[in-house]
């Protein structure tokens, strides 16, 4: 049985600066993983490389044993890799519900074209029910007919995460989910993520600056510094690590 996510010797330079410098780590079991590090540690670049927004100069990335580092974004998604964006992206013109249903839709071109002139184009009942349940969990069901662009920033965040989860990914990467969210919504977010993890037993990788949030959520933390993995382990060990503290202070 191969690991769910395997990052091996990944490097990426920008004009001579090594943003990511031979990073290795493996995620073998389901769990909530935190990826942290001071500004400029290379977290975002690594995140982008895993999601396919940038290509690594060298190294390999495997999901469930399959190499994905040369695949395009949508191909990675179809292999069960989902993500959210730091800047929070939803389809602003569509309603909340349509956002979720779109995320659940089978987007293979041939299938889409075949369905275009089919008699029944409504989404399957199970998808509809799951969409309703998830939206309700984050308190968005009452805003389902509202265009996503009208929601508050925090609500859009929650919607984005619901959209990512409805496609049943095996690996969900969240890019700073806690940033810009008020404390009430933050608690809701934490509860929601914990509940989803309990239900689905998938891998959640969270890049985060909010230490309190990540430490309370993650079971395992990876710390990056100057493009390398500095330390990894359970939250308590990380919090006690001298090297980590030095990196943040230095």
């Amino acid at each position, binding site marked *: 049985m191969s690991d769910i996510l395997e990052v091996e010797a990944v490097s990426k330079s920008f004009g001579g600066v090594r943003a990511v410098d031979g990073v290795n780590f493996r995620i073998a079991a389901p769990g909530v993983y935190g990826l942290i590090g001071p500004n400029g540690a290379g977290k975002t670049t690594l995140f982008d490389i895993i999601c396919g927004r940038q290509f690594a100069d060298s190294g390999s990335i495997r999901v469930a044993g399959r190499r994905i580092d040369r695949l395009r974004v949508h191909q990675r998604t179809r292999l069960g890799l989902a993500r959210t964006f730091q800047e929070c992206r939803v389809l602003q013109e569509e309603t909340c519900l349509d956002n979720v249903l*779109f995320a659940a*839709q089978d987007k293979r071109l041939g299938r889409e074209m075949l369905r*275009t002139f089919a008699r029944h184009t409504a989404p399957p009942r199970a998808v509809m029910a799951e969409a309703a349940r998830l939206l309700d969990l984050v308190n968005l069901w009452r805003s389902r007919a509202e265009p996503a662009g009208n929601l508050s920033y925090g609500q859009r965040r929650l919607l984005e995460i619901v959209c990512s989860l409805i*496609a049943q990914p095996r690996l969900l990467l969240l890019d700073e989910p806690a940033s810009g969210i008020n404390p009430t919504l933050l608690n809701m977010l934490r509860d929601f993520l914990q509940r989803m993890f309990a239900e689905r037993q998938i891998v959640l990788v969270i890049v985060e600056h909010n230490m309190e949030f990540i430490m309370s959520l993650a079971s395992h933390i990876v710390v990056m510094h100057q493009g390398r993995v500095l330390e990894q382990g359970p939250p308590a060990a990380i919090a006690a690590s001298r090297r980590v503290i030095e990196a943040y202070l230095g």
Partner: protein
Amino acid sequence: MRPRAGAVPLATGILFAAAVYLSPVLFAGSPYVLFLLTQTLCFAIIAIGLNLLLGYTGLVSLGHMGFAGIGAYVTALLMKYGMASFVPALAAGTLAAGIVGILAGMPCLRLRSHFFIIVTLAVGMMLFLFFNNLDWLTGGAAGLPGVPRPRPFDLGFTLVDPRRPVGFYLLAATLFLVVFVFQYALVRSDFGRSLAAIRQDETLAASRGVDVFAHKLTVFALSAAIAGLGGALQVLFLRAAAPQSFGFAEDINLVLIVIVGGAGSLFGPCLGALLFVALPEALRIADVFRMVLFGAALLALALFAPRGLWGLAVAAIGKLRFGKSAAAHVGHS
């Protein structure tokens, strides 16, 4: 249950189809109006083609009359030299435009927004050069006279003769309605949703699993093919092909038809086509001063009616009938 963006009630659909089909009866006494309406339908088909791309996918192509020209010239040449009858010739023209669309789309679609606009403009001008310069094939700049109209169709109960004004109108109306329904089905389908996602946020669409390039290429080809169909119909209607009908000025005209009419709405491009066929007729003796005013009107429209005239008209009437809240709602349809 699922709220459908831009759903058209059956009543509106039937009313629209009836209005299209009954125009020959309504304007029986005025072949001139029927002639203009036929021209409108030809343009509306091309505009619907562009609307799929520009309105629903958010890709502004400035070279679409080139694809219309491919359809037009392929069909016209096949018919003029008796190499194919109407239906295969029209199919060949449509298909050829679609294929050229794929070939042109492959390099163009690697580029985004403004880059894409400029490169499609270049493609349109390159296609025009072929229409204008290949004297031995297309008749060159002097045009291709003597393109025949299709032969009569026997429908069992009646004979439709496209060589007569009413007959051609009915042919054009049928093709127009087919294309309109195609547009309707496409934009409401899952494929249409993926296109809408691409228009709103390409990066997000890709991360939701949409193969952005393949989707764009498909809609580009469909859009070019529909434009080709409209171009073919137009040339058969006029019975002569002229390169200038597919040149840069017409490209601009087409983009205006779609945007001014209301890009991304079902009826907007049809309204635009009606307006842009009617307007030059109303201003038949357009002096320079009126062109200045027309320019000012376009500028005002760009600044104050971001969703085009269709959006403006529907919002205004909605406001009259239902008060303010309805008008606000219509904005998202």
